[in-house]
């Protein structure tokens, strides 16, 4: 029977670890509630958090369980080429967000990413983006809920519906009570739990396979072979022999530029963490501090994938229990005694809940500040919007439970997520980058650019589905879809700008390049060299380059 070989042998102590974690999570929710007086406290933690907290939350909101399980699966399937998702597909975009874009986001005092569009362009652009963002967020949070329920069923034998409801109830309580502070504090806690669990699995695995040289030997003998040990070899155009099946042009432009910049710089579930920082300097440092651990996460996700390939016979074969996605649970089963097993299980479940919570806390903010306040009930008291935000949280989670059921209809969850990103994030990045650097870009260009971009991504997707065009793989389809969306958005944006009226320049203060608000709001100690955004950015890029060369 599918599922039985993966069932973990958990005992009361393991459940004790999980229950202790839940108690702390709920405790944080109740404690955070005491500090919430205004809607800004609830939605943006009162813009009060230090950079190390927002930085870890920034990376943790992304280090959900889909990422952990997905990247270790990619590690087992493609080998070291998976590092592209980190070193070229994340770090440059995070550095760009911190150095170039944060002064506009934070300096203009906007409370959300759609709100930037309202100030820079017009209300139709804003409304369109707020609606699509709210929709995409509840769909993705549903994916996380469903994936969590699948893992609970596989590892513990819980029924799917029970898993969905328990996880949703816990997230509901702590986000409704404590808002973004609750989400962020739990993300920081989750970060340390999942990292320690993955680190322990990796260390035992490395000892088991005889260290790096032992692992290299096993991989050379596996079906992945020598190419599995290199990131960039075999990516020459016309001569693609890399396991990932993409040339350096697709990797650098499709993944590294459009998809990655689109995700990291315009996804409000990420940017919200930086907006909650205590000042502009902390806001800029948020993605940069997040980038430092991100550089090393391949070593605790891709390496376990490779270890699983080396030690688990039949991984990736016909047996559904042995699919690549189960690499981490299989290693847990193989190595961990009760106790450590409880810690790893807690880390995995915490990572799923963080994925739900990050999306729900972004969803309630956009619903309140970007849809309800401007378009439905303007001019109410702040206390009214705070109350509404709590109701929106409850609504968002209830909707997520039903979108979890939609996700259950897709047989490949990660393709579904990629599809959502190529529809919504890739065009948005084109609009942002042009709008920030070109004062002449007009309000209506913002609107029609977004429409054109999403239609471009949709055309690529349906053309592929209906077999009008073909692509080498689903990944190649989403990379191309993202590039098409970006180009369509950019072309329409420029075209519409040339025939419509731009905003007067004085209305663009704080929103465009050369007019950023950078008034000093420094904390004591911000002048220290290790808090300089430039130093952090150079360090992150330098480390990434060194590692890329080492695993070339």
């Amino acid at each position, binding site marked *: 029977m599918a599922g039985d070989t993966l069932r973990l042998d958990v005992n009361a102590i393991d459940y004790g670890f999980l229950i202790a974690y839940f108690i702390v999570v709920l405790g944080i929710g109740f404690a955070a509630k005491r500090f919430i007086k205004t809607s800004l406290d609830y939605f943006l933690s009162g813009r009060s958090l230090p950079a190390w907290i927002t930085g870890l939350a920034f990376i943790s909101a992304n280090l959900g369980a889909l990422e952990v399980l997905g990247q270790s699966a990619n590690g087992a399937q493609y080998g070291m080429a998976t590092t592209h998702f980190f070193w070229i597909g994340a770090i440059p975009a995070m550095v760009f967000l911190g150095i170039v874009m944060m002064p506009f986001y934070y300096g203009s005092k906007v*409370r959300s990413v759609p709100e930037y569009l309202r100030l820079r362009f017009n209300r139709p652009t804003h409304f369109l983006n707020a609606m699509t963002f709210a929709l995409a967020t509840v769909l993705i949070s549903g994916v996380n809920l469903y994936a969590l329920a699948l893992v609970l069923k596989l590892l513990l034998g819980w029924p799917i519906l029970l898993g969905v409801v328990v996880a949703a109830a816990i997230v509901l309580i702590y986000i409704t009570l404590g808002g973004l502070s609750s989400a962020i504090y739990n993300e920081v806690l989750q970060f340390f739990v999942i990292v320690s669990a993955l680190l322990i699995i990796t260390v*035992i*695995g490395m000892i088991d396979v005889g260290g790096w040289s032992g692992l290299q030997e096993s991989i050379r003998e596996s079906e992945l072979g020598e190419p599995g040990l290199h990131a960039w070899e075999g990516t020459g155009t016309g001569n693609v022999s890399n396991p990932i099946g993409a040339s350096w042009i697709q990797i650098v432009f499709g993944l590294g530029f459009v998809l990655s910049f689109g995700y990291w710089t315009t996804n409000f579930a990420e940017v919200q963490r930086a907006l909650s920082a205590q000042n502009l300097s902390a806001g800029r440092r948020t993605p940069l501090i997040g980038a430092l651990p991100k550089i090393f996460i391949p070593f605790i996700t891709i390496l376990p994938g490779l270890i699983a390939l080396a030690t688990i016979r039949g991984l990736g074969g016909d047996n559904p229990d042995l699919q690549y996605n189960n690499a981490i649970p299989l290693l847990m089963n193989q190595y*961990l*005694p009760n*106790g450590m097993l409880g810690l790893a299980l807690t880390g995995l479940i915490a990572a799923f809940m963080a994925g739900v919570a990050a999306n729900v806390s972004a969803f309630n903010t956009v619903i309140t500040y970007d849809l309800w306040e401007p378009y439905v009930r303007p001019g109410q008291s702040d206390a009214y919007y705070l109350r509404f935000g709590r109701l929106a949280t409850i609504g968002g989670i209830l909707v997520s439970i039903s979108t979890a059921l939609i996700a259950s209809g897709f047989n490949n969850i990660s393709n579904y997520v990629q599809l959502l990103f190529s529809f919504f994030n890739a065009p948005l990045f084109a609009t942002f980058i042009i709008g920030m650097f070109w004062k002449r870009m007009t309000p209506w260009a913002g609107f029609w650019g977004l429409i054109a971009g999403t239609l471009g991504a949709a055309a690529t997707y349906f053309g592929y589905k209906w077999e009008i065009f073909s692509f080498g793989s689903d990944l190649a389809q989403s990379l191309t879809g993202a590039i098409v969306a970006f180009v369509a958005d950019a072309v329409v944006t420029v075209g519409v700008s040339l025939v419509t009226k731009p905003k007067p320049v004085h209305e663009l203060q*704080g929103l465009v390049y050369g007019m950023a608000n950078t008034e000093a709001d420094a904390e004591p100690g911000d002048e220290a060299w290790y808090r300089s955004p430039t130093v952090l950015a150079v360090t992150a890029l330098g480390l990434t380059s060194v590692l890329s060369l080492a695993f070339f």
Partner: protein
Amino acid sequence: MAEDPHIKQAEQAAAAAEPDAEARFADLFDIRRIIAGLFLVYGVVLVILGFSASDAEIERAAGVNINLWGGLGLIVFALIMLGWALLRPVGRQIAASPRNDDEE
């Protein structure tokens, strides 16, 4: 500074709530202590389990008594977090911040 009525209202509400901000932040529960507490509990339980580990369990984990060593690792990490929280308390940093002086 953005001149937007919606943003302005939220900022004004936040400013109105400011007088007790110092007290609020000063006793803001410190996430470092929470992390330290949870990891200390996990670490101690794991170390105790590690002392009673069976040979079969150690054999399975590539010959490492992982509950013992992992538990010790968690305890060390918890102590580092606790030390940091005690050396650089949140309350004092907030009280020293110039922004709060300006509000007075």
